[in-house]
């Protein structure tokens, strides 16, 4: 029975995606309740399948199960296999994803009622659910990359959901740039794993009760290199320092998608990847030290910056970032089970907070009416820990978001673009000179009248 239950965890959302994409391409306009039923039904079914899989494993005293769906493609010695793995880690993630996507699907029915992008929202939500399920069930790093890219893509398009405004588009593009730069790490890690280990498939290391994990190269140098590449990939997806600037901006998207992406699932895929790579942190001290350092640095940065934010969604974004930073540190220190518990509890609490955030002022008003006074300030205890002399500096630092954004904008991206544009200008001038185009040489472009 389990042989078909595990593939169904993937096929059911894929079927829902296929039906919605057909509607989008053929410009069919199904009713809101039909769309809602498709998505909530698919992920509701998945939640039941997760429950069934869990019961089956318990009944058969198994801690994991592996299903092969066959070969995707093969050439020479290289084979891309579709292998799905269910163990404590993947089942927890898939259950959480199914439950939350189904819940968000139901919640959004009213929230996005009569919104022009209703079908688009549900399509992207469903695609995200399918991508996350694939990441969680993947039996190899190649397959994780497959789902990982889908998740990044849906996240970008949902940030830019309100596409007629300029800011969501800019923020979506910023998130995409971060994802794309960091996904290079994941793909490089997969390629390097094939090069050094011979495959990127996961195996069960240690006892039968342990989670599946990536196989280690035989030497420490390659272990450290791959460890750093995986950490690089996780930093982008989980908005760790210095790549975290996109996360508060990502809150431009609809609140339900912000809740599931940046409060619950997407932001925790980085820790998920690190948990799958736990043998790397146990073997390479340099790599584990980097994981812990990045985590602690992010937690501190996000705590300080979050405290000076003036809107609730940005505050929650930084709170998410801080918690994920702590989870990074837990993984680096080897507390894998604690990290998993932390992920689940944080995902549930944070998504609830983000879903409630649009009604925050009303909630505060209600509380203040009951208490008949203004609500007291929170977090004052932290001020006692910081000497008065450095408080103004820290406040400035927090307001500037740690200067990461400005350094990135002015020196890294700005400098790079300015350099590339200079090269492009030289190339254009040469082409203009060669073609005898005076207008191009003088920098005033003659527009070719292209008929409509």
């Amino acid at each position, binding site marked *: 029975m389990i042989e078909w239950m595990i593939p169904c965890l993937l096929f059911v959302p894929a079927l829902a995606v296929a039906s919605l994409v057909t509607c989008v391409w053929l410009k069919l306009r199904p009713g809101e309740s039909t769309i809602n039923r498709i998505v909530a039904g698919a992920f509701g079914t998945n939640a039941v399948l997760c429950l069934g899989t869990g019961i089956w494993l318990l009944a058969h005293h198994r801690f994991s199960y592996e299903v092969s769906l066959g070969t995707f493609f093969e050439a020479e010695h290289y084979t891309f296999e579709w292998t799905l793995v269910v163990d404590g880690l993947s089942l927890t993630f898939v259950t959480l994803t199914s439950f939350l996507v189904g819940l968000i699907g139901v919640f959004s029915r009213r929230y996005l009622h009569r919104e022009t992008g209703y079908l688009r929202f549900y399509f992207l939500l469903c695609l995200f659910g399918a991508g996350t399920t694939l990441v969680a069930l993947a039996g190899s790093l190649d397959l994780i990359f497959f789902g990982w890219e889908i998740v990044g893509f849906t996240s970008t398009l949902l940030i830019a959901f309100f596409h007629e405004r300029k800011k969501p588009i800019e923020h979506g593009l910023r998130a995409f740039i971060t994802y794309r730069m960091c996904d290079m790490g994941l793909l490089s890690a997969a390629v390097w794993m094939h090069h050094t280990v011979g495959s990127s498939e996961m195996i069960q290391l240690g006892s039968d009760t342990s989670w599946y994990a990536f196989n280690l190269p035989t030497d420490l140098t390659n272990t450290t290199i791959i460890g750093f590449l995986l950490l690089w990939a996780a930093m982008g997806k989980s908005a760790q320092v210095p790549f975290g600037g996109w996360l508060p901006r990502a809150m431009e998207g609809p609140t339900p998608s912000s809740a599931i992406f940046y409060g619950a699932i997407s932001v925790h895929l980085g820790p998920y990847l690190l948990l799958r790579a736990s043998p790397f942190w146990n073997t390479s001290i340099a790599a584990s030290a980097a994981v812990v350092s990045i985590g602690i640095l992010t937690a501190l940065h996000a705590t300080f910056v979050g405290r000076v934010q003036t809107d609730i969604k940005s505050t929650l974004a930084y709170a998410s970032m801080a918690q994920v930073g702590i989870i990074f540190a837990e993984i680096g220190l080897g507390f894998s089970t604690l990290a998993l518990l932390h992920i689940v509890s944080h995902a549930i609490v944070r998504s609830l907070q983000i879903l409630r955030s649009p009604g925050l002022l009303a909630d505060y008003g209600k509380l203040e009416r009951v208490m008949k006074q203004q609500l007291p300030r929170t977090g004052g205890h932290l001020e006692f820990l910081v000497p008065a002399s450095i408080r103004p500096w820290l406040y400035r630092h927090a307001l500037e978001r740690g200067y990461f954004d400005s350094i990135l904008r002015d020196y890294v991206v700005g400098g790079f673009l300015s350099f*590339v544009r200079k090269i492009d200008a030289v*190339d254009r001038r040469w082409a203009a000179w060669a073609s005898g185009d005076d207008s191009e040489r003088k920098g005033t472009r003659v527009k070719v009248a292209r008929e409509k």
Partner: protein
Amino acid sequence: MIAIAPLALALLFAIASLLVRRIKDPRKARRHATFWVVGGFLLGAVAAAVDTFTTVHDIELFGTGMHLLPDGLLKLFPVVTCLVSWVAIAMSPAGSHPARTQARILSLLAQSLGFLVTPEPILIAGLWATSALTTWLELRQVANGLRVDRLFAIYHLPSVILFSLGAFLITRDISYYGVISLLIGIAIRQASLPVHSWFPAFVDRAPLGLVVLFVSPQVEVIAQLEFLSGGLPADLVGIVATLGVVTAIGAAVLGVAQQNARRAAAYLIMSQMGLVAFGLENHTSLALTGALLTWQVLSLATAGYTMALAALESRHGSLDLRVPHGNFENTPRLAIAFLILGLSMIGFPTTLGFVAEDLLVQGSVNEFPSLGLCLIIATAFNGLTVMRSFFSLFCGARRHMGESDLTRRETLALSLVIATLILGGMIPGPVVAIDAEEAHTETALPLPHR
């Protein structure tokens, strides 16, 4: 041996080109050209099916042995090229593509198919020259005094001369210098860095249907497969592979900085052609399989992506990336097609591009570890170009000027390309098997005489 199906199709399209040229109304010319191309596509598909599923491969005609189609991977080329032309013609805006341009598109299609007729160096060199000449003649008429024709001639005249000289030297068994001459001719046509400057200007100003037929079939890959089977002399392999990677990365980086969608597309295509050039120099059949698959994906995706730009330009006018155009709600199908085709080019999962680039990177890492990893950087930057173009061209503003979405004719052509790329991406096994067989044959051949 002569391949009879490409010959018949080439003759068919040459006649069609003459007939279409006589029509005055561009819309009527487009209807007729579409009819011819769809017919050619169906004939090519039937020929491929007969060649694959029956035993009719070799035919004796007038005392000469003939193939129905070339062996291996190239037997798919007529179908793919006809599909590319279908998209180019069906989506060409009547305003920027008069009957003359459409006739030249058909003529370029006939010449591309001519490359498959026989691996005779002189014939291939002749077609190399005529295709450049056809394009140049068109550029002379559409350049509106901007003299892109002059720039095109500055680059393509040496390309034609060097290619022809190389082909001649190879027939005279002077292989080493012949190969060098041939490679420089190919590098110019492939717009490899640093001999690329004609390409962005060409894509920026030429009618996009013509651009598609000149670029998408990538006849230089066929020339490479025909003349340089088995790989290059050892001292040239590293140079050509490095040049391929430099082009892939350099063009990807320059693409990000462009402020016009046509030029951004030019650098995107250049970068992908660099990947193909790099892959073809690998001695592992895995990387070669990836390069061949990237070539096929690039042909289809480039055609769709470029013609989606043409369709958008005919509706919007400007394709400036600095200004958000925002028309997603009115043209959702065009926007989605543009995005999917762009993502296919950069190797996004669920498309055939993902399989191609995975094979290319995995295969090249063993032979050129650092260069192989550089490909990942190139694809990352290309992704930024696609997404930036999508957001600028379809989002970010509330300006709706009554632009219409894709017509039925355009939808059908683009749907076929998208379905091929997505179905190929979901079930890549059969296509990869054909490419792997071809790659195995190529790598098994002896190296050319040094």
